């Protein structure tokens, strides 16, 4: 589904991504972990070109995302993204947050989008919040709405950039629970996170990035119980 070939990203002389090659298959849940500054968020942001890669290729649904001539707006419609800081639109109600893109992009008419929004809100138990503004909601509620906002576009893959890192501890659970539901429904997911429990439970593959390279990747069982690379062993000994 996503084919990454020798991806490079250079920030003012420093190689943040130093040749990353991997393939994400349909239905996979890839959890990306690594120390801060390792390039894991940059990697994720390159996947939908919020960061411009300086080298390599990313193939998604028959197009190379790194090619300046590709229709990135159309490709992004199929790649949902969830941010650490939620990034709900504060001037719009919850309902408008969800319906804006599908309507403005002509994918649904207002009534369809509205129905979709209500279904999604009912699913996360926030139906009664449809007409409130994001600033009145808790972080956990905001992040769950950000997730369903992305889902309203019917994406083929969901990218999560440290979705629980900005949350108060008691709200982490509700967001992870929603992500687990998504995973069990077969959504293809790429998740950058520090939640090792989530990685163990949900991931089909865990990827360790350090120094802009994939140092080790494996199924979660092997990854956590038999890490081979000394840097990964060191990292896991600190976070587990």
């Amino acid at each position, binding site marked *: 589904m996503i084919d990454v070939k020798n991806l490079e990203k250079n920030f003012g002389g420093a190689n943040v991504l130093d040749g990353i090659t991997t393939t994400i298959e349909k239905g996979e849940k890839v959890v990306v972990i690594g120390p801060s500054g390792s390039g894991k968020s940059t990697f994720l942001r390159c996947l939908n070109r*919020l960061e411009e890669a300086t080298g390599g290729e990313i193939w998604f649904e028959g197009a190379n995302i790194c090619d300046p001539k590709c229709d990135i*707006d159309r490709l*992004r419609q199929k790649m*949902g993204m969830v941010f650490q800081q939620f*990034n709900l*639109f*504060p*001037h719009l109600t919850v309902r408008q947050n969800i319906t804006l893109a599908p309507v*403005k*992009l002509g994918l649904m008419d207002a009534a369809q989008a509205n129905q979709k929004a209500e279904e999604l809100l009912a699913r996360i138990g926030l139906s009664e919040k449809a007409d409130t503004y994001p600033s009145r909601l808790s972080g956990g509620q905001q992040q769950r709405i950000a997730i369903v906002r992305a889902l309203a576009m019917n994406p083929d893959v969901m990218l999560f950039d440290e979705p629980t890192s900005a949350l108060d501890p008691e709200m982490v659970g509700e967001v992870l629970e929603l992500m687990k539901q998504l995973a069990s429904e077969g959504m293809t997911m790429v998740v950058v996170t520090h939640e090792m429990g989530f990685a163990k439970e949900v991931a089909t593959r865990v990827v360790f990035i350090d120094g802009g390279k994939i140092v080790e990747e494996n199924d979660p069982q092997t990854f956590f119980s038999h890490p081979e690379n000394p840097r990964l062993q060191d990292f896991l000994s600190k976070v587990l």
Partner: protein
Amino acid sequence: MASLGEQLYTCLIAKERWLLILEGLGNTLLIALGAIILGTLIGGILALMRLSNNWLLRGISYLYITIIRGVPMVLQLMIFYFVILAPIKGMPKMVIAIISFGVNSGAYVCEIFRAGIQSIPVGQTEAGRSLGLNKWQTLGYIVLPQAFKAVIPTYANEFIVLIKETAVAGYIAMRDLTKAADLIRNATFNAWIPLLASAVIYLCLTLGLAKLFGTLERRMARSDRR
């Protein structure tokens, strides 16, 4: 020394001098209103140019702002009247004044808009783009509505400053509020009544405007309430 009542009568009522004040007020309002509309248009375009990826557009915008902000308003007005627009015969002074003040205001409005747009966190743009909205849709539906709200106070201030700046319109022999007061001063040899009267009118205008924008700001802040 005449009584206050007599002075007021001489300066404001006699020989229909109040009509002169009214005419001046009308001209002042017309110049300011025309100029803020023109200035907002110019400022909006300049702000987008300033934030564009194209170095030429950025450069033009920067040059415009530098020149306009570095030259006194009175001088710009005179340059427009006696030099730039002089070849166009029969152009009404009002139009010349609106163009001069509008062109000037545009530079300041541009900086207000630019600061407003840049005050919106980049995450908002990223969220819009990641949903598949293009650059202009993201700007129009997500960034600008928020920026608009953020700039209301400084924009209101620019409008207020502009109203007061139009007081130099007399330099191209326009009869604005200040000029009207000055004409009455000349005719009656009484300085303080006409000057004070026009000062009070300016004050009412600016206070009223501040109040109006204050209301607008509170109404726009609805979504921020916690």
